[in-house]
């Protein structure tokens, strides 16, 4: 599997993401935001966490309009896989690849701790190695992770089995406890929790490992 990790000024989980993908067996290239094209033959684009462009205007708004994001949108529209974590999720909503928006946490505080997640669907390359309904622990670290979408969108996401993860104890006010959602073709995943920070024994928690392993299995056999 060939993966590209996008790097913006202010990204801070780019290396963690690249290491998690590499250790899962992917051939990883880090791509600068000013590049207008992705490396050829890329299967997966990973948009890492951080505070791209200092969260100016809105989280992810400036990054979503950078040259590389046009290539990421084309990649997704052509059926490519895109994983956005934390700021990456915010960027994906700003590009319109995923519906909704991430608002300021309801409690106004920046939250950095490990939370419980329920796997809502195993029907995606990202979640197929978990069982639906099972629970895992993954860290969150965000100020703006409060998922918002209108009632019709929430109903559509739920009805189409596109909610990938929910919080077992909602930390930020997200509607329907949503922690991660899939695109209609189930190949674009945006999630606020950081699976790349629950990957190695040294992290004290390896619950995120299976997300990468499942992705690897799916994209290598494809």
């Amino acid at each position: 599997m060939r993966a590209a990790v996008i790097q913006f000024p202010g990204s801070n989980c780019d290396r963690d993401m690249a290491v998690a993908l590499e250790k899962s067996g992917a051939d990883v290239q880090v791509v600068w935001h000013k590049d207008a094209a992705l490396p050829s033959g890329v299967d997966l684009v990973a948009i890492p966490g951080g505070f791209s462009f200092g969260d100016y205007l809105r989280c992810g708004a400036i990054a979503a309009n950078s040259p590389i994001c046009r290539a990421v949108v084309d990649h997704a529209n052509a059926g490519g896989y895109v994983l956005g974590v934390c700021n990456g999720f915010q960027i994906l909503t700003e590009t319109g690849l995923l519906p909704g928006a991430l608002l300021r946490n309801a409690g106004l505080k920046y939250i950095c701790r490990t939370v419980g997640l329920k796997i809502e669907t195993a029907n995606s390359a990202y979640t197929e190695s978990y069982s639906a309904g099972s629970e895992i622990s993954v860290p969150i670290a965000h100020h703006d992770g409060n998922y918002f979408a209108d009632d019709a969108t929430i109903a559509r996401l739920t009805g189409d089995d596109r909610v990938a993860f929910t919080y077992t104890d909602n930390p930020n006010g997200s509607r329907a406890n949503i922690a991660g959602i899939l695109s209609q073709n189930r190949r674009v995943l945006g999630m606020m929790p950081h699976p790349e920070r629950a990957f190695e024994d040294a992290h004290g928690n390896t619950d995120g490992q299976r997300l990468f392993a499942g992705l690897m299995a799916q994209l290598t056999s494809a």
Partner: protein
Amino acid sequence: MKARVHVMLKEGVLDPQGAAVQHALGALGFAGVNGVRQGKVIELDLADGTTEAEVGEMCEKLLANMVIESYRIDLL
């Protein structure tokens, strides 16, 4: 010419910052503040002849997120 763009969260979208400001005003003894909504004001210095429609396009493409925000344009 200049334009001033007001960006506000839409009605029905929770504004936790506005709620915190409302709470703080109450704590300062200001009674009767029934609600606070916090938004942002963006001033644009524009080439003469820029139309309101063009500024509207700027709002919809970047300055506001139409999923959660609405905007108002004042041409100055």
